[in-house]
Every structure is written in C-alpha cells, then in structure tokens.
C-alpha cells in the first residue's frame, strides 16, 4: 500500500496523507456523554447520542466511498532529511570465522539431542543406583520413588518408613515425572555448558557438578523435602548423583567432538564476548 502510494507520487512534489477531521473527536465526545448520562441525567445521554450520530455520519462520509486525503507539500530542500552517510567509526573485528563478526557463538555446539540422550543415560544410571539402594536396604522398589515424590505430596512427606516402602500410584506418577524432568533438564544443561569448560568435561560434569549439587541440597533439603532429609543416606545419594553426572557427561561428550577455543577466556567460550584481532593469539 505504502509502496503504491510512493510510486504514484514520485516526483509530484507532494505526498498524500489522510486529511484532518473533527468527526472522531465529536463521535468520542458523544459516546462519552452517552455513558455520562447514566450517572447524571438522561438529557446528557440524548445530547451524547446526537453528537455520536453526527460524528459517525461525518466520519462515514469522510471515508466512503474513498477516504479523503490532502496533499502535503515536501519540506523546503534545506529542511529535508539528509541521507544517512557512512561514519568513520572503525568496528572491532573478531578472530573467529571468515566473515569477521556477528556470528552466533560458539561455533560448534552439541545438538540438543545430545543433552536429551545424556539426560536419559544419566537418569537411568541414577535410578538404577537408587533402586539398588531401595532393594538392598529397605527391600522395596517403591521406597526411593516415594521419597522423591514426598517433595510434593504431603501424605508421603508425613508417612512412616513402612508406608514409604508400599506402592503408591500418586507417588509413582509424581516420582517418575519429577525424575524424568530433572534428568532431561540437567542433561540439556550439560550439553550447553560442557563446551564452556572444555578441558576436563568428565571431571566437571561427572564429579564436580554432582558434588556441588549434593552440597547445595544438603543445605536446604529440610525445606524442599523433609521426608527425604530425615531418612537420607548421603553416601548412596552422592553416589547416585555421581552416576548421573558420569553417565550424562560421558554420553554428551561422546556425541560430537568439542570444537571451541581451548585457551580462550571463560566469557569468550560462553559466547558472551569475542576475542579481538589485535591480540593475535593462536
């Protein structure tokens, strides 16, 4: 539409714009008075109605059959917009890639599927260890599941140890959802974070992160999941976290070779910052 108008008027020295009109103002005023009559006096409504009618008809005639337009002359040449000109600024360039700048970083990332696979592998490893604990110590497959879902279900949170060893549909459902959700999320996180710490992904993803996570939970588990907090065997817990970390980290790092700057600063690997030309490293 704009382009047509442009084509139509090129070189004519004026540009057509919608012409000013009082009718919208009158219509709006009438409409307001129409409502104001409800709280003042019916006569106000009537006046409003008449105004609205006039405004509406005026507006109608303004746009039908063809909307009125006026031709606005172009401003004097001296007052017209100047063309945007190249600026002398230099733009710092990047070392990466052939084109210089503006790429999305880092250049090689794990596909999302790596994170999902890693999460699944880690989740299986973790669940296997937790179930092993349940069978060995409490002779129950359901015990670890119920303890996990006690984070969200008060009836399980207040249950006795014997009750926790029993099967609970609610517990199984919530437990599986929570476990799958966390496994996938953490797996994805590994896939995006590991390239930022490329030197020893196995140690970081497999050992450091699970231990940090365990430590963090140790401080707040009493509120997040009091039932688990009372009964937790920290050794087994940390072991299952490690199992997750090692399995997920292993699967993720095997998906594809990590291709990122091995000697660059963290911010560069995180994709927050780029290395400048002048440093000329590597």
């Amino acid at each position, binding site marked *: 539409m704009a382009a047509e108008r442009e084509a139509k008027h090129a070189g004519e020295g004026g540009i057509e714009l919608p012409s000013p009109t009082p009718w919208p103002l009158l219509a709006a005023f009438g409409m307001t008075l129409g409502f104001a009559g409800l709280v003042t006096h019916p006569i106000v409504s009537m006046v409003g109605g008449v105004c609205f009618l006039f405004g509406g008809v005026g507006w109608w005639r303004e746009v039908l059959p063809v909307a009125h337009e006026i031709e606005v002359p172009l401003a004097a040449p001296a007052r017209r917009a100047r063309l945007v000109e190249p600026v002398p*600024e230099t733009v710092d360039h990047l070392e990466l890639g052939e084109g210089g700048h503006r790429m999305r970083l880092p250049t090689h990332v794990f596909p999302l599927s790596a994170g999902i696979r890693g999460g699944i592998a880690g989740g299986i490893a973790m669940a296997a260890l937790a179930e092993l604990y349940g069978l060995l110590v409490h002779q129950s497959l359901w015990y670890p599941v119920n303890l996990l879902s006690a984070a969200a279900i008060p009836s399980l949170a207040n249950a006795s140890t014997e009750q926790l060893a029993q099967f609970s549909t609610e517990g199984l459902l919530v437990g599986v959802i929570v476990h799958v959700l966390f496994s996938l999320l953490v797996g994805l996180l590994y896939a995006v974070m590991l390239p930022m710490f490329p030197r020893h992904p196995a140690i970081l993803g497999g050992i450091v992160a699970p231990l940090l996570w365990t430590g963090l939970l140790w401080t707040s588990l009493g509120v*997040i*999941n009091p039932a688990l907090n009372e009964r937790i065997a920290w050794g087994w817990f940390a072991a299952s976290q490690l199992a997750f970390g090692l399995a997920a980290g292993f699967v993720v790092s095997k998906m594809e070779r990590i291709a990122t700057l091995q000697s660059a600063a963290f911010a560069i690997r995180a994709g*927050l910052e*780029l290395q400048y030309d002048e440093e000329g490293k590597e």
Partner: protein
Amino acid sequence: MGLLAGAAVLCATGVAMAEPTTGRPVFDQVSNMFQPVSVPAAKIRDLALLVLAICGGIFVVVGGLIAYTLIRFRARPGDEHREPPQVYGSSNIEAAWTIVPVIIVVVLFLATARTINELELKEPPESALQVTVVGHRWWWEFQYPEYGIVTANELHVPASTPDAPRPTFLWLESVDVAHSFWVPRLAGKTDVIPNRRNTLWLETAQPGLYLGQCAEYCGTQHAHMLLRVYVHTPEDFARWVEEQKAPEAEVASVAAGRDLFQRTACINCHAASGTVADGTFGPSLSHLMSRETIGAGVAMNTPDNLRAWIRDPQTMKPGVRMPDMKLADHEVDAIVDYLVTLR
C-alpha cells in the same frame, strides 16, 4: 539501598519490639511473620526462608553481573570512533540461562506444592476447637457452637500441648462484603467472603496475645477492624469458657440503665444475655467487660471510652455503622453504668 536501610530498621524494630512485653500489652506488638508461634505460620516461615535464600542468591549474582558489566564495559575516552565487535548472541549461554531458572523453578514448585497441600486442611481433626468467624463491617463475630458462646473482636483459643494436641479450626463467613482474617504470627491470611465458607487452622503451644487485622479492603473503616487472638493454657481457656457461659449477674443498682437499654434502639442491633436484646447487626454485649477493647480495637474498654463511644461513635470511628443515638448525658451514664456490670 532502600532495601538495606529497611533491613536495618527491620532488625532494630524486630529486636526492640518483637516479644510481647510483660503485663498485658495493648497495641505494642510487632506481628512479624518471621517469628511464628503456630504450626502453619512456622511452616510458611520455613518455606519463606528457602525462597528468600534462593532469591537473595539470584539477586547477588545478577545484580553483581549488572554492576560488573557497567564498570568493565563503560565507554572510555578514545572509544568514540570505535565500535565493539558486533555479537548477535550465543545459543549456548541463552540455553543455559533458560534451563537453570527452569530447574530452580521446578525445585521451588515442588516444595510449594507440598506446603500448599499440607496447610490447606479442609476437614477439622477430631480434637479441634471449632469457631465460626463472621466478618461484619467493621468488626468480627466469633461463635463457639460447642459452648454456645458468641463474642466479638477478641478470639480466645486454647494452646495445644504435645500430650493433648488441640488445634483451632476456623470457619470463615461474611455477612456483607469480603474481609480477610490475618494474624501473621499464627497463620497466613484467608479471605472471609459472603456466600462462601472458608477455613483456616492454627495450632500453637505458646500462650499470649497475638495481633492481626482485616487484610481485605472492606470500606470506610477497613483500618479499624483489628483482631486480637488470646491463646490460653488449656486450664485458663476452660475458665474463660465457664465465665462466658455463666449468666450475667443482675445488679440492682443499675436497673435503670438496663431498663433504658432495653427501651432504646440499642437492642435492634445488640444482644445482651439476660435481657430482651437479641440484635445481630452489632457485636453482642454479653460479658462486654471481659474484652479489652471496643470498636474492633479503636480504644481500650474503659468506662470513659465507653461513654465517649455511646455519646458519639462517629467521632471515635468515623463511618462506623452505629449511629449517634442522641442520648442525654444522664442516659449515657446510666447505660454505661449498666454495661460495666456485664462481666
């Protein structure tokens, strides 16, 4: 900056005023939700501390990052004609700062979901004391169906001891507009809504007086709809119940006042045991003098204040539903003399 200043003030006032002073305090009590004395309030406090810790951590990290960025990447003299490298984004870091918040949110959500369902008790336990709370503009009515007691503005409940647990279970109703029952040290608030029956429970081992007030805007005197909850030891509570159930002593010397009371429009709105008065629009006056305040907490319940109140309630509590009864001074005195015998 404001937060820091406020935190300092909070600590100062918290230390200075948090504990109820000895003697029977009037208004001097800070209803600090971080000093709970009741089971639900304590559970909320625990959860709140977790949330505060997480949020505090996030604030420090993000705020620190913003500050660091501002200092580290400020334009410096000589930068005017140099543009930094143009970076569009990074799928990795963007994914990371999407996933990490999701994990935090899920953890918070699980703990929240459990606490919600723990606290939202719908059925009262066997041992519970049940009280019906009725919100009026602008006062509270408390009915104890178990004992046949009706009182106003000052709720009396027993403490719950480990060997005889006795939670208090409140049924919340309103006869006019929406109110909200809130005593921060005992429990979170629950709205009191007409044509709806809400519930709230509390269980405390610590006798004392706990202040609160209506927390849902309910019109002119929303500010003066105070709640006073007295927690008694089980023995004290039993004694209080007995006193409330006992008939009023008929004092002969105030027969004139009682007569006048029964002949004026007072009885259209107020009830008083032992008289024909059975109105329900205003607070019951039975055992009036066992209450510490009048007008839902606008003043202490002294004969002087009562006199001023009856003479012109609109001065003490502008907008209150009780009109100025245009009584002569001696009539007011007679009625006050009668009222102070309602013990």
